[in-house]
């Protein structure tokens, strides 16, 4: 890409309203404004705009005016409404409550994100008493929506406590009447038909991990007994999806979703990864880069890669997914869907690690097996390596003390992009977010430094890709992107507080 | 402990809070002997570590501690500057 020259353009303040810009192609410059409206201009158009020389009767003037880019006609009320809509979540309170019911895990993953323990480490099981107290804190949230997410370790290892949480929370919610949901992230290897029926009876949404085709998955996620973690997961994905149909649920909406952790090995398999997900009946791939939490740092040299390599992988994968969609296959990439929802719809899907400010403490809380409470799951994982920086209380603490903890305040400030060098000038500011726990772990402070920050590189790289696609304006791709931003609520998973499941 | 291990640290008053120096000296008293004085521009602390093998660490961590307390207070003027 040949960079444009501001020296030649000679910008001067004049008719423009506040805007940020970024070149995304040889003749394509993205401009965004405070409230997240955007336009892609040619170099000539950008030059005229930057110089304040746009003719009032021109097509460009009309486009700029319509998107609120001109000072004289700037609609403060409209801008304010759009900012408010984008940030509707700010005062919502914690919605996601991650409950780590055990650190024990039957699988050994090369990057283990969750700081696992061996199967004989029963002392890392959450007790029923701690579980009930954790539910009490979670249901004290000011948010009318509460999602309890079972994590581990492997949550199926401590299934009695999973049941305790479900039953206690459901019972208590009869009085509290939140929109309560349960989700479980599991490798499925310990699932049985009996456990599955219990989870389905109690409307627990199931999610698993698939790291690519069988060979890649099994190289990264090892099961000591069967030696085939992939087959175990694949078998149960199929079975769970069948069970949804048996219960009369629409399979296009109700099916198992899976998460991918991208390691160095994954980078060579972009088509195979996508094909694997399609074959398993998953409609969504979340192309998550590896992060430095849990045990991952110890294995960094073997697993890590420059973010430029990840972004190449990302582009090839999503290009391939777009091609498949054009052939009628329904598969979307989660990162793309998150950003596109903000870009195309002006709404925020409330993905807690990618919003402004981020969700640590104010949108999510993580409950460790031992009763300690952390601002986020990354904070909990960091604690498992001996760093208690993000501990904000225990299950015995009063709810208001937990969320009012000074660490929560610090993280809310640190992830506010209005105080972040670079972000204040970045064209992607209205759609982006930063992760304080990641910044702390990778760069030594919760603020981080965006110029050499991996999360920033990934966010910028993905948005560069998406805006390049938007600049190309291929009608079929635009239709696919529109579809990716259409959120269909899964009402089945919402607990009915008037019903008892016993 | 030999006098060789004694090191004089001169904390500029414009940078370090005097209360931070005082508090750090109390906390680190079990690891080192301290002699305090002051000039117009500096808090002067002579540190004599009680464990010669850890002298560098004790003096260094003591300095970090003073810095940490100063930052915690929001600077010399408690963030009012």
């Amino acid at each position, binding site marked *: 890409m040949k960079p444009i020259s501001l020296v030649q353009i000679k910008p001067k303040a004049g008719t423009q309203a506040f805007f940020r810009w970024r070149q995304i192609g040889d003749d394509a410059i993205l401009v965004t404004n405070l409230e997240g409206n955007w336009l892609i201009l040619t170099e000539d158009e950008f030059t005229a705009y930057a110089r304040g020389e746009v003719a009032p009767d021109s097509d460009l003037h009309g486009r700029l005016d319509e998107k609120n880019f001109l000072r004289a006609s700037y609609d403060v009320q409209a801008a304010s409404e759009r900012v408010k809509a984008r940030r509707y979540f700010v005062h919502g309170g914690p919605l996601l409550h991650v409950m780590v019911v055990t650190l024990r895990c039957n699988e050994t993953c090369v990057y283990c994100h969750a700081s696992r323990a061996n199967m004989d480490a029963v002392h890392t099981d959450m007790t029923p008493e701690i579980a009930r107290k954790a539910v009490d804190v979670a249901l004290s949230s000011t948010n009318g929506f509460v999602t309890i997410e079972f994590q581990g370790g492997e949550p199926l290892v401590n299934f009695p406590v999973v049941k305790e949480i479900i039953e206690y929370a459901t019972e208590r919610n009869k009085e509290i009447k939140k929109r309560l949901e349960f989700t479980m992230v599991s490798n499925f290897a310990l699932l049985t038909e009996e456990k599955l029926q219990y989870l389905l009876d109690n409307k627990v949404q199931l999610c698993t991990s698939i790291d690519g085709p069988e060979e890649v998955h099994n190289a990264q996620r090892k099961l000591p007994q069967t030696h085939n973690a992939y087959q175990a997961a694949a078998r149960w994905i199929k079975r769970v999806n069948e069970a949804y149909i048996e219960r009369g649920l629409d399979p296009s909406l109700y099916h198992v979703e899976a998460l991918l952790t991208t390691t160095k090995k994954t980078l060579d398999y972009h088509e195979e990864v996508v094909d694997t997900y399609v074959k398993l009946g998953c409609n969504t791939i979340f192309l998550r880069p590896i992060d430095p939490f849990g045990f991952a740092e110890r294995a960094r040299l073997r697993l890590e890669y420059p973010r430029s390599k990840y972004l190449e992988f990302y582009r090839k994968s999503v290009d391939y997914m777009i091609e498949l969609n054009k052939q009628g296959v329904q598969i979307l990439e989660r990162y793309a869907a998150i950003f596109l929802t903000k870009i195309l719809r002006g709404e925020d899907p409330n993905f807690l690690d990618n919003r402004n400010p981020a969700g640590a403490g104010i949108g999510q809380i993580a409950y460790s097996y031992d009763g300690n409470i952390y601002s986020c799951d990354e904070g909990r994982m960091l604690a498992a390596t001996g760093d208690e920086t993000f501990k904000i209380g225990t299950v015995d603490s009063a709810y208001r003390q937990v969320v009012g903890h000074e660490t929560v305040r610090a993280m809310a400030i640190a992830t506010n992009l209005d105080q972040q060098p670079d972000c204040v000038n970045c064209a992607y500011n209205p759609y982006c977010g930063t992760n304080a726990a990641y910044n702390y772990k990778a760069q030594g402070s919760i603020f981080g430094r965006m110029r050499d920050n991996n999360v920033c590189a990934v966010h910028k790289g993905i948005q560069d890709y998406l805006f390049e696609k938007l600049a190309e304006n291929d009608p079929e791709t635009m239709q696919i992107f529109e579809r990716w931003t259409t959120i269909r609520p899964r009402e089945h998973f919402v607990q009915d507080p008037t019903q008892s499941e016993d | 402990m030999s006098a060789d291990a004694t090191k004089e640290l001169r904390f500029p008053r414009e940078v370090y809070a005097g209360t931070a120096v005082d508090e750090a000296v109390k906390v680190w008293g079990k690891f080192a002997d301290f002699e305090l004085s002051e000039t117009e521009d500096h808090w002067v602390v002579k540190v004599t570590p009680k464990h010669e093998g850890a002298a560098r660490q004790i003096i260094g961590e003591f300095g970090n501690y003073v810095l*940490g307390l100063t930052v915690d207070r929001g600077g010399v003027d408690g963030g009012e500057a």
Partner: protein
Amino acid sequence: MSADQQTSIPDLPEALASANLGERSVSLNIDAELYPLQAVYGAAYIFIDRCYVFVDRPEAGKFRVTLAAKEGVEEVEALRSLVGEFANELISCAWRHQVTQDNRVAVETVTVQAIAGAMGEPSLDDLADFDFTDEALDDPLGIAQSWEEKHGRKEPKAEADAEAEGGASA
């Protein structure tokens, strides 16, 4: 630290930075007109897990930061990397200092809304614990107060808290 042990660092002017291999330390001279003290605090604090950090005032209008590596730094190249990393952090902190001043109201408004929204209304028990002095009555829950102004802590706390405090008050 004696001057004769000082050595220059490749690619960096001697007037700006020098290393002392015997001490495993590196010193950086900083122009106080360009970098406010709050930025120096912010950057210095981030290095206290890796280094012994000392901030000096060699003359009016200058700071000198000395970073003595706690471990693992035997060569000048490693010290160069350390001082380079510090310089990057320093410029980031300096810019944040400016940005925070420019956008203070916006940042504080969002933070207060987020924390107040998450905490919710106080119960009668919460209110019973309040200190109803004139000062507290201005903001009985303490939520409208910027957190970095709020506390003089009784003892040193976790790194991120204190680091954030230094940075945010910048």
